[in-house]
């Protein structure tokens, strides 16, 4: 018997069921806030930066299964990376790390990338 696994990969469902890094960071070094209610996805991504390295990341997301899983994944991927490395993380990379997303859900990975970029920009602007 098939089930929701046929819509999402096992990896997506795993991150959906047990999302990593849920929550806010107190006094974050950068906050990204993207998405809009009309599309049904809103992501907030918080980063803590030390010596140009992202030492912690957390998120809060209102959205579908893919939105939650990509949020979880991108926060995992970014931890320990330098700002420059983090800026290189593309939405495709997030989707691939989740063993793919249905075409209709690729916009969620775009949102995750944007949330990360926006948090880094916020950090860069503040640290100028």
């Amino acid at each position, binding site marked *: 018997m098939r089930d929701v696994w046929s819509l999402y990969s096992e990896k997506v469902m795993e991150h959906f069921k047990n999302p990593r890094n*849920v929550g806010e960071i107190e006094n974050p070094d950068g906050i990204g806030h993207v998405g809009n209610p009309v*599309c049904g*996805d809103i992501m907030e991504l918080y980063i803590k930066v030390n010596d140009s390295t992202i030492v912690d990341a957390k998120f809060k997301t209102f959205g579908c299964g893919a939105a939650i899983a990509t949020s979880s994944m991108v926060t995992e991927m970014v931890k320990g990376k330098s700002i420059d490395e983090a800026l290189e993380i593309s939405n495709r990379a997030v989707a691939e790390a989740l063993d793919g997303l249905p075409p209709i859900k690729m916009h969620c990975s775009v949102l995750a990338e944007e949330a990360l970029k926006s948090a880094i920009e916020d950090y860069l602007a503040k640290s100028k």
Partner: protein
Amino acid sequence: MKRIYLDYSATTPTHPEVVKAMLPYFTDVFGNPSSIHSYGQEAKGAIEEARVKVADLIGARGEEIIFTSGGTEADNFALKGVAFANESKGNHIITGSIEHHAVIETCKFLERRGFLVTCLPVDEYGLIDPGDVKKAITDKTILISVMQANNEMGTIEPIAEIGRIARDAGIYFHTDAVQVVGHIPVDVNELEVDLLSMSAHKLYGPKGVGALYIRKGTKLIPFMHGGDQERRRRASTENIPGIVGLGKAVELARQEMGEEAERLTYLRDQLIKGLLERIDHTCLNGHPLKRLPNNVNVSVDFVEGESMLLNLDLEGICASTGSACSSSSLEPSHVLLALGLSPEQAHGSLRFSLGKWTGEEEIERVLEILPRIVAKLRAMSPLLKSH
């Protein structure tokens, strides 16, 4: 894990007795009803029996029932058929803003082909004001189409009132009764409708078959062009097993409808009450009373529908949402927005639709599990703190 199906408005399982009734028509009585030999005539007899059963259920005559491939075809047929046949009289069509896509998209097609469509608003409960219909009528109006009950939030429209207005104005009136037929009584004469759509798979019949009631004397052209089947109103070799299945489903519905509607209304109200009590910041969508017996639709603030659905599915509970995160448009339900809900609320909607195999146990389980899911999702919602 026992799965709990609460998506009967999306589709119902085919009743085992319906399947049993269909079976002989695949392999034994399989003739083409257009053939004059015995195989063909046997098949024809089966179709005519089903036709009478369907007609009886809605107070129509057999010859006024045309079988289709489902509710969508019935809607397409009614709207395009009347529009193209009555162009010389006018090009104006009146419909509502919470119609099923089968009506909305057909109207859009007709607009591109020169017709003018007025789309009426609804109130916070989803009700159309018959007064609005009356005001919208012009001397070019040829058709009014208003659904009998909404598939998403279950509101039952004042069809008889609108029917009287249409009749007085001499304008054809169509209603999409896909969610109603077989669930609560429908009488085409009481409702004063000229055309009425239904679909078998919403009443424990098979998918891929439906019917359009066409009042005698209604001027419309075919939608499906071709052979002479169905009194030349709908071409294509008849789906005999499907039609027999619809007939059987209608027969069963007729017997069980009264009691079943009462039973479901009770369960429905239990579920609504329980959800509103156990989850704060939750509201009921649709009318509390003028409502299909099996429909529960709530908006849960701060969380998105698909993520609730997936979590429910992981617990074996199947429901649906007006969030369109998984549709290609990304826009939330046009129905919920028409009620005045914010996009967040529309995205945070859940529909539980009850049916023949729903009991207290299933309702209890939803009431036990959903609050936990909502709590989990709210903990990660960026919307919550801002409220």
